[in-house]
């Protein structure tokens, strides 16, 4: 028998053994149900945890117990002070997602879309929950507004003409004083200051309003909440060996003096999007003599790609300068910003906070600049 035949026979032995072992596995374990239940528990705990700071630890523990034992979710909401008086978040289809703005995060229903908030014009829902631009007559069950949408092209006439709401909303960073406003018809708008940022919630569901407000807490997405300079590219992985497992999108905008850059939005995307981006940058033409290196001001996106899930996993940071426009690879080389460069990360709420450069064709993505 040749060495190759010997190896083939051993490989077949191994295959047969593995197949046999696989048939002995108990596949009736309800891991999917456990996974769903764990996510729901975590979401509820997160909503509860951001309530009163001194009661947070008690709330977390008791919320888990309450969920485990099927506690009455219709219990009146109030400060979580004792183990038997802990408010729970309303159970909603699909659960909640996390939204970031400057130094604050808040949980909102996953079915909600995105839009603007005062003092920007165009206050109201603009995008559906999957990031698509709403068409005339299309509605969403609620939306998250930030004071960025169309603000550059807002006419003075539309300022301050907030219509009577028909859709629940969360406004992050709206120029409103903390307090409670009765909007009529059971609708209430409440504003609180959390981590130095106003969080405004409006709707006719008191339980949901209270749960969302309680969930507001300082940002912990992994994105820096404020930068003193535009984000910088980096990372040490070599071409051909880097297999991205995820991509964290951190969207920033400079203040008027470009003294600092605040976080507008953060979202984690899976491997498919990360690989698309890496491939698109490789294919994009390097910028020649013209370079925006050292540019300040404007809007930026830091795209943080990591390989695997280990804390010390290899990473690559790509930086998008939407004013230039360009995308810088980890080695600092600037490439042309193309449609293919942008589409992998211009998803969901990022389309409601960053403006599209007119040089790049991005139908339905980012905020279109009107001339």
């Amino acid at each position, binding site marked *: 028998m040749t060495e190759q035949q010997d190896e083939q026979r051993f490989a*077949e032995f191994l295959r047969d053994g593995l197949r046999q072992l696989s048939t002995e*596995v108990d596949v009736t374990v309800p891991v999917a149900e456990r996974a769903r239940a764990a996510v729901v528990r975590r979401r509820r705990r997160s909503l509860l945890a951001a309530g009163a700071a001194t009661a947070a630890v008690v709330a977390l523990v008791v919320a888990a117990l309450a969920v485990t034992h099927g506690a009455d979710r219709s219990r009146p909401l109030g400060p979580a002070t004792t183990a038997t008086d802990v408010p729970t978040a309303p159970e909603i289809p699909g659960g909640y997602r996390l939204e970031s703005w400057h130094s604050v995060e808040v949980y909102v229903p996953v079915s909600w879309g995105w839009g603007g908030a005062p003092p920007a014009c165009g206050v109201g829902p603009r995008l559906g929950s999957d990031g698509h631009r709403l068409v005339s007559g299309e509605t969403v069950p609620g939306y998250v507004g930030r004071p960025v949408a169309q603000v550059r092209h807002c006419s003075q006439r539309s300022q301050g003409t907030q219509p009577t709401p028909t859709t629940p909303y969360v406004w992050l960073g709206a120029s409103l004083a903390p307090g409670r406003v009765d909007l009529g018809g059971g609708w209430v708008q409440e504003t609180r200051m959390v981590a130095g940022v106003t969080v405004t919630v409006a709707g006719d569901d008191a339980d949901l309003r209270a749960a969302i407000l309680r969930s507001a807490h300082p940002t912990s997405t992994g994105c820096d909440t404020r930068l003193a300079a535009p984000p910088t590219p980096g990372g040490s992985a070599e071409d051909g060996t880097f297999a991205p497992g995820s991509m964290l999108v951190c969207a920033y905008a400079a203040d008027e003096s470009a003294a600092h850059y605040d976080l507008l939005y953060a979202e984690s995307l899976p491997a498919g999007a990360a690989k698309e981006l890496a491939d698109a940058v490789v294919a994009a033409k390097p910028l020649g003599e013209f370079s925006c290196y050292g540019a300040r001001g404007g809007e930026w996106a830091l795209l943080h790609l990591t390989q695997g899930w280990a804390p010390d996993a290899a990473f690559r940071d790509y930086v998008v300068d939407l004013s230039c426009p360009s995308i810088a690879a980890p080695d600092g080389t600037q490439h042309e910003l193309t449609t293919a460069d942008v589409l992998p990360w211009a998803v969901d709420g990022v389309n409601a906070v960053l403006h599209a450069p007119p040089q790049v064709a991005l139908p339905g993505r980012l905020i279109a600049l009107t001339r």
Partner: protein
Amino acid sequence: MGERVSGVPTFEAWTAARVPALLRFAVLVTGSRAEAEDAVQAALERAYVRWDRVARTEDPDAYVRRMIANAHVSLWRRGRRREVPVAEVRGSEADPTGAASDPMEASDRADVVRRSLAGLSRAQRAAVVLRFYEERDDAEIAALLGCAEATVRSHVHRALVAMRKELGDD
């Protein structure tokens, strides 16, 4: 999360179809039923919270398998080895190169393979399962484990050498 959006399978429908295969894969990769269930559950939790995107933008099966394999190998990288059975398979009566024809012999062979796998490092074990159970090539395994293809080849080669040595087949 339960609705169907333009042909994208719901999380519930997908897991109903795929969980058995994922559990089999995870048990083979980890060598531990408890660890396998933890790994699959953790991977499904990650997939569940971003299901619409996972289902629309990539192969959910690959996404979950990558997380299972990575969680297993990362555990190894951090040196947090869990208890594994010691491989003591010398003198086994199973023929490592013969073809089994009856269930008893197949069971013996499975037992030999189980114990010889237990002597491998986590990365080697994952590479062997992906190669000989999943029938994946070097590039696919490298992508799943987050390493270079040369590293995959090294893992598989060293694993086979170690297994054959344990089996007294070298």
